């Protein structure tokens, strides 16, 4: 099965990448872009097929490796 993980910066944490993208879009002539935030998107293919087990497992992966809990949040979707 597939798990999809979104990792985003916590509220209030500066996002230099998002800021730079917003700026670049403006320079390219796109108007009305109020805010841009950039995060990571990770797709995992897993052997496991029980969604509850997957969620638990991926939750653990997020905590241990995929996300930086000090500044990031994560959400997990299971296919």
């Amino acid at each position: 099965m597939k798990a999809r993980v979104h990792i985003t910066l916590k509220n209030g944490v500066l996002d230099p990448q998002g800021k730079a993208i917003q700026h670049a879009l403006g320079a390219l002539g796109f108007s009305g872009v109020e805010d841009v935030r950039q995060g990571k998107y990770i797709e995992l293919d897993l052997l496991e097929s029980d969604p509850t087990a997957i969620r638990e497992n991926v939750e653990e992966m997020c905590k241990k490796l995929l996300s930086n809990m000090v500044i990031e949040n994560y959400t997990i979707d299971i296919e």
Partner: protein
Amino acid sequence: MKTAVVTFPASNCDRDMFDALEKITGTKPYAIWHQDTEMPDVDLIALPGGFSFGDYLRCGAMAARSPAMELVMAHANRGGNVIGICNGFQVLTEMGLLPGVLMRNRSLKFVCKNVNLKVENNTSTFTNAYQRNQNIEIPVAHHDGNYFAAPNVLKKLESNKQVAFRYVDDNNEPTEGANPNGSQNNIAGITNKAGNILGMMPHPERFIEEVQGGTDGRGFFESIINSLK
């Protein structure tokens, strides 16, 4: 020889390139700002290394869309010479002037060290001052130098002899261990098919005086001078 160096926000090897060109060609390059809309008539445009726009989003992506890049594109399309070193190489691929992309290094880490390169051919505008198969030493310093192209593209690069430099070991072999970033076929630098555009990850401009650790970078600039004679 008349040259120009384009500076983007957070270019940081622009001065090094400027100095190298001035020292070797004897003429001060023109300084072009990424927002400039005019390009003097020059023999060579150099896109320097650094972290244009912080390397945010993708390395070279935002720089490739700067106003001055339209001038670079026009110059290249007229057959004018263009070089992109490190970040400049990334910009050239983002502009589509060179095929492929530079992905994150295999180690995922920034790598700064001196590497050995094999000069694959010495007939190009950028390599004629070297011997063919010469083993030269030049520094690399990058986070995203892992060259990737689709198999058919790669094949064409090889058969057209567009690979200018390859990472090799002391025995001039393109081994896994000699590859600092995971590049396909140990590619360190390529040219376009017409041979007027070159992109490379190593920094020849850092190796032009003995005190810098070596002078193998000079040949690169001398080649360009030769080819304009």
